[in-house]
């Protein structure tokens, strides 16, 4: 045990490093297959080590501090601190990384000879190691370094398909917005350094330095913008639906499933651990969460690109996590820590749940894309017969993300709901109304997510194939099915075993606030008890549900044992059915989009070509263009960009090219500096 605790983290990082180097070593064109296999294999080993290490930390309740000896500038930079919270996130990241890496071995083969797999392997491992270092970093410099390594590593993964102009431009947008967010973080950390005189997080953790209230709010504001950009909170989300789908599917799973969670992790650090006691920031985060959850799912409904749809659901689920997190911050500030613990458990529980079912969905969507070669859901259909396993895995993910019992999404949504209810009952009036807003948003989000996944599963897997590529689709190999099965089993386990998981996360939360002890062992039928207001026993619910299904199934077999089944065509009203008569993904969600048109502003454009232009009775062809404008670009980003451009043009005037003028500038600057030095 102690060996694992001592070396686990370093070995995990070293395996990633080894994978990266191996990959570069074999990056010549002839040996790329080896490079790809090696890089994914070592990444999987690193993930497995990280998982074992993190579980050891969580279950022993210990804290691991690592200080690597270094000289010069790097002194005191290579410090890592893994407590319960960090271990929880490392476990989440490693679980998904394990599944994604195994999946990647088979998935990447399709790019052999097309794109550079050796280089991919290098950046893939860099990205994974960067995420691990972000979580474990114990000082500002290490954190920012790891944050940038993670961003740059993932940029190259997004832009991997470099002959595809969409992927390249998605990568550009991603790195641009990512750096913009990082700029806010640099500002926040520099201000922190100036105020505390140290980069160490220990100083913040000990609350040794009391910052001026104003400065603290500025730092928290900057940090919130920086982290919200990475998390994809609306309106800072615009990179997310572009970048996540562009990357290979197992990378999408990692980005959507865990990378955006590193921002959640840092938010917990900042708002709960380092600077607790700001109810107002809690409420701001709650509102951001409510908006992101509802709008995220509405945008997802309007998508027919399967990976973009999943990416928008990440925005939605980050919103749900923020509902729990914001509630927790508010509860701690209002002096109701018991409710705060529940809310934080809800947020963390949803974090790991979303990591599991979102990566499962991305991997199974990846299998579909792999089999059909398109991301357009309108060209799918009937895949359940051609890819039965993938269909089961996708359905598991869909049921879980829709929050249906007994899968894991239900438990964390239940906990989030309970936290919001507690707030509605116990907090002062302004906070109450914001909590009510959050509960309302969550209620509608759940229903809309279910609608969206009926659409996604129905359009992809059910009915008849709508194109040739769907007709010729094939099931993925076992190396791709295995990780999906692993994740699917975990989604069920995290639902049914809620009575184990929730107290385990509770332990992490308690240790974060400096309380706690050994982890209580609970029976699977024990209830999660929220102040005696609500109780939940997922194992019992699952048991009742399974018993009900069995009883129904057996009863109907017995009652109708004499009735025979005949296979026939779907009723076609006398004409032969074509795939064009099925409902499409776009058609399915059209009514919801029409209902929410005030928010979404969909546009519709119809054109028709007639046989006889003068009479215009008989149309030769009709075209209907439906589109969803990107309101954030039109009303936020484009004006901001043009503002920057205009001010840059204005600033250009001082650049005349005349040497004398430049000398004058230098002289004036010098004079001003001397004057200011004299005065102070």
């Amino acid at each position, binding site marked *: 045990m102690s060996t694992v605790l001592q070396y686990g983290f370093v070995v995990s990082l070293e395996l990633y490093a080894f994978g990266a180097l191996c990959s570069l070593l074999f990056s010549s064109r002839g040996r790329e297959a080896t490079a790809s296999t090696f890089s994914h294999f070592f990444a999987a080993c690193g993930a497995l080590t990280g998982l074992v290490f993190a579980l050891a930390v969580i279950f022993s309740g210990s804290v691991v501090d690592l200080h690597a000896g270094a000289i010069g500038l790097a002194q005191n930079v290579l410090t890592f601190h893994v407590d319960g919270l960090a271990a929880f996130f490392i476990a989440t990241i490693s679980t998904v990384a394990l599944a994604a890496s195994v999946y990647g071995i088979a998935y990447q083969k399709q790019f052999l000879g097309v794109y550079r797999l050796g280089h991919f392997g290098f950046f893939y491992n860099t990205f994974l190691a960067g995420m691990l270092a972000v979580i474990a970093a114990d000082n500002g410099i290490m954190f920012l370094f790891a944050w940038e390594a993670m961003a740059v590593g993932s940029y190259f993964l997004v832009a991997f398909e470099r002959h595809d102009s969409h992927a390249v431009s998605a990568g550009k947008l991603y790195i641009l917005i990512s750096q913009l967010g990082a700029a806010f973080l640099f500002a926040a950390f520099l201000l922190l350094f100036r105020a505390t005189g140290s980069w160490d997080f220990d100083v913040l953790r000990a609350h040794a330095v009391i910052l001026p209230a104003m400065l603290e709010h500025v730092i928290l504001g900057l940090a919130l913008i920086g982290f919200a950009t990475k998390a994809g909170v609306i309106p800072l989300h615009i990179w997310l639906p572009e970048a996540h789908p562009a990357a290979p599917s197992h990378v999408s799973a990692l980005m959507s499933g865990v990378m955006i969670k590193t921002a959640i992790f840092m938010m917990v650090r900042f708002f709960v651990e380092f600077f607790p006691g700001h109810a107002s920031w809690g409420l701001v985060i709650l509102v951001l969460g409510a908006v992101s959850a509802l709008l995220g799912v509405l945008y997802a409904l309007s998508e027919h690109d399967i990976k973009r749809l999943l990416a928008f659901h990440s925005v939605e689920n980050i919103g749900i996590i923020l509902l729990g997190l914001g509630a927790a911050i508010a509860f701690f500030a209002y002096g109701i820590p018991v409710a705060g613990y529940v809310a934080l458990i809800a947020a963390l529980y949803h974090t790991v749940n979303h990591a599991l079912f979102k990566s499962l969905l991305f991997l199974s969507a990846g299998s579909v894309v792999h089999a059909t070669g398109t991301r357009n859901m309108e060209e799918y259909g*009937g895949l359940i017969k051609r890819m039965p396993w993938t269909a089961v895995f996708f359905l598991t993910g869909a*049921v879980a993300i*829709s929050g*249906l*019992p007994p899968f894991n999404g*239900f438990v964390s949504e*239940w906990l989030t*709901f309970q936290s919001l*209810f507690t707030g*509605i009952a116990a907090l002062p*009036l302004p906070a109450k109304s914001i909590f*009510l807003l959050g*509960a*309302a948003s969550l*209620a*509608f989000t*759940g*229903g*809309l997510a*279910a*609608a969206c*996944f*009926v*659409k996604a599963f*129905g*359009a992809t897997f*059910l*009915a*008849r194939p709508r194109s040739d590529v769907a007709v010729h689709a094939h099931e993925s190999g076992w190396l791709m099915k295995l990780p999906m099965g692993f994740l699917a089993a975990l989604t069920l386990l995290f639902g049914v075993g809620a009575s184990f998981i929730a107290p385990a996360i509770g332990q992490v939360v308690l240790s974060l606030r400096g309380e706690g002890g050994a982890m209580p062992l609970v029976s699977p039928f024990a*209830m999660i008890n929220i102040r005696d207001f*609500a*109780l*939940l*026993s997922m194992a019992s619910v699952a048991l*009742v*549900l399974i018993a*009900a*299904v069995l009883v*129904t*199934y057996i009863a*109907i077999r017995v*009652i*109708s044992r004499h009735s*025979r*089944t*005949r*296979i*026939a*065509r*779907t*009723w076609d009203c006398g004409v032969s059915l074509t795939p064009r*008569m*099925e*409902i499409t993904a776009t*058609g399915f*969600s059209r*009514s*919801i989009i*029409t*209902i929410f048109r005030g928010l979404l502003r969909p546009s519709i454009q119809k054109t028709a070509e007639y046989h006889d232009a003068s009479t215009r009775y008989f149309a030769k062809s009709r075209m209907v263009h439906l589109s969803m404008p990107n309101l954030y670009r039109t009303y936020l980003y484009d004006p901001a960009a043009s503002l920057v451009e205009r001010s840059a043009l204005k600033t250009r005037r001082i650049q005349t090219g005349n040497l004398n003028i430049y000398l004058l500038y230098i002289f004036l600057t010098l004079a001003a500096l001397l004057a200011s030095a004299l005065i102070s």
Partner: protein
Amino acid sequence: MEWTFFILNMLTVTALSPLTLGIIRKVKARAQNRSGASVLQPYRDLIKLFHKDEVISADASWIFSAAPVIVFATTLAIASGLPLFSPVPSFIPTGDLLVFVYLIATGAFFLALAGLDTGSGFGGIGSSREMTIAALTEGGLILSLVAVALLTGAANLGIMSAAVSGLSGMALLPLSIAAAAFSIALLAENARYPVDNPATHLELTMVHEAMILEYSGPKLALMEWASASKLLIFVIILGNVFAPWGMTQSLTLPSLGLAFLFFALKALVILAAIALIESGMAKFRFFRVPDLLFTSFVLSVIAILLIVV
């Protein structure tokens, strides 16, 4: 004790649910000056369907066969946690209000998938409409129950029912507003007027019927039975959680019988109201339904604000 309660609940709800349909149809027929079929007709229909052969579309997958079982099983699971004759002062896992709402959503989810599975245009449009309505109903459904939960300090239907009967008169206003919100959710969730027409087979208006259009024989029977059970479940919650008067605390046979009589009376009133709504008004145009559902949502928000402020 708990297990007998579970099983008794499931059996009662399942056995009585076709009767609710029979009663609604009878009242409706009388209101329209017809004599109507016997109230037992739904039972005869079910028996007939269970013994018929069935036709399955060649395009259908296992989802089509699994959906009726899952949909029916969710109603069984929900039924196990309901306060039927006696408010349950102890905790029943399936009686949690969010478990109830999400089990209902599970049923809707698989019903909608089944509608899409055969690739018929009707099924597709029905599923699309069903999920639209279900999504928009969820706000009012959850929050109206939450209003009662906040009023009683418990989120379990049985415990809520026990606590509501002990409330003071002051609580009646928010309770009745929440009940109104829940009633709208009841109509929407059960494909009743003015949201859906349960008797139609006209393409333009079908929602629920469109989804189960491809079903026949035993599977159709299960689907029909499940939707009848769902209606009875909502009636029980409206009658016994929002107005739990007349329920018994003692578990002796005579008092249980009396409690059942009270419940039957409440259920009759609710069913007659549904039937009269169906005879007295026109179905809403589909895009006017959201207004009604948002009304339900706003009503429950008002109820909650009245309680917590």
